């Protein structure tokens, strides 16, 4: 049984309503300014810097553990890693030999199509911070912010494919909204035949939805979906997901398509922020 010990011997109740109204008006003012006029990004950035130490304090024990874990790995494991990485690097170099030529080719073709989205020409790598943003929204906090040139709406990739886009930027950190967020949509096309559609998030990091595909559309299990470049946020040609199931109900006009994202949305720690060169 918990009995309250009174530390409050004031009868000061009269001001309560007044103060409540005052603070509520202040909060409502903030909300209106933030939502309608977008005036508060400066204040928000400043406040984010204030809570940044807290976020670092939480994320650092995890990092310290990772560091310890790394430090005590055996020599053999490191050797094996080194061999594997060298092998991968060799493979990557082979592939890269043709890259320059192909990039020029792509630019020329894009020029023909008068497509404005080009090839990513600059990128930085960000680290996902071990901080929970919101249990009900697919968002992660990343340790790159306005100081590094990150901007709202920037496309974010991981090594598998499209990861999400930047939703909010503060001075030192940014918030990335994942493509699996229930409110996120990304214009995409089927790589095999160019069928354009929109991929929606479902709230589940291993599952995306494709709600606007007619039953007659040419889409089959195993199709790769890539970004179409429409909408201007995501550059064209990056993998979004693979079709894992197509259900066609003859009575319905739209097919039900399940897509698995190619990016490891629930596991990736390193993210790529890209700047796209508008190849005009």
């Amino acid at each position, binding site marked *: 049984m918990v009995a*309250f010990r009174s530390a409050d011997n004031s009868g*000061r109740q009269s001001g309560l309503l007044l103060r409540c109204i005052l603070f509520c008006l202040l909060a409502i003012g903030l909300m209106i300014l933030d939502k309608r006029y977008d005036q508060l990004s400066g204040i928000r950035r400043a*406040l984010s810097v204030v*809570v940044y130490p*807290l976020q670092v304090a*939480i994320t650092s024990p995890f990092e310290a553990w990772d560091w310890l874990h790394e430090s005590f790995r055996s020599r053999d494991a490191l050797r094996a890693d080194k061999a594997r990485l060298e092998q991968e690097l060799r493979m990557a170099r082979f592939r890269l030999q043709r890259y320059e030529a192909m990039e020029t080719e792509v630019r020329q073709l894009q020029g023909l199509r008068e497509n404005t989205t080009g090839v990513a020409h600059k990128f930085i790598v960000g680290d996902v911070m071990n901080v929970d943003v919101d249990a*009900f929204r697919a968002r992660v906090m990343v340790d790159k912010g306005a100081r590094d040139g990150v901007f709202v709406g920037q496309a974010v990739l991981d090594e598998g494919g499209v990861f999400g886009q930047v939703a909010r930027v503060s001075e030192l950190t940014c918030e990335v909204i994942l493509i699996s967020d229930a409110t996120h949509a990304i214009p995409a096309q089927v790589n095999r035949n160019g069928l354009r559609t929109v991929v929606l998030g479902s*709230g589940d990091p291993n599952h995306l939805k494709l709600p606007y595909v007619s039953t007659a559309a040419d889409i089959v299990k195993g199709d790769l979906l890539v970004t179409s470049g429409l909408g201007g946020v995501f550059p064209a040609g990056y993998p979004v997901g693979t079709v894992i199931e197509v259900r066609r109900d003859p009575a319905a006009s739209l097919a039900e398509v399940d897509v698995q994202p190619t990016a490891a949305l629930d596991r990736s720690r390193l993210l790529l922020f890209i700047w796209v060169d508008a190849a005009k």
Partner: protein
Amino acid sequence: MTREDQLPRTSMTISALAALILAIVPLPYPLDVLRPDFLVLVVLYWSILAPRTGGLALAFIAGLALDVLHGIVLGQHAFALTLMAAWATQVRLRVRVFSMLHQSLTILAFLAGYQFILFWIDGATGNPVTFLSRWFAPVIGALIWPALAGLLNRLNDR
């Protein structure tokens, strides 16, 4: 009763900071949905026990911190928390003499009200979260209230 003028500012600040940390410590998937609103519980505790210590300013600042950490609109949590803290302050003399069960039920009402205001603002600003699981947090919060109030009382005694 011994400290008529001395307000428990230190314990208030420490408990609020600890609650803020608990609010963003990463939890594995099924648990993060069940995470109670620790900071709200702490603010309610101080509103009921010692409204002069932090008062509505504490609620407002704590809400603002939550907004910065995971709000969609700045001012959302601040608004909800201020209203609930004011309500708790208003009825504090009654809540203090309630039995533990009765207290927990009252806290459940505060937490549900808080969650409802957030839900409403989310909807009004066009970012609705309609999962039923969002209503788990108030229930868990009410369940841990006796333990949390006991802990804070202990902290306060020293």
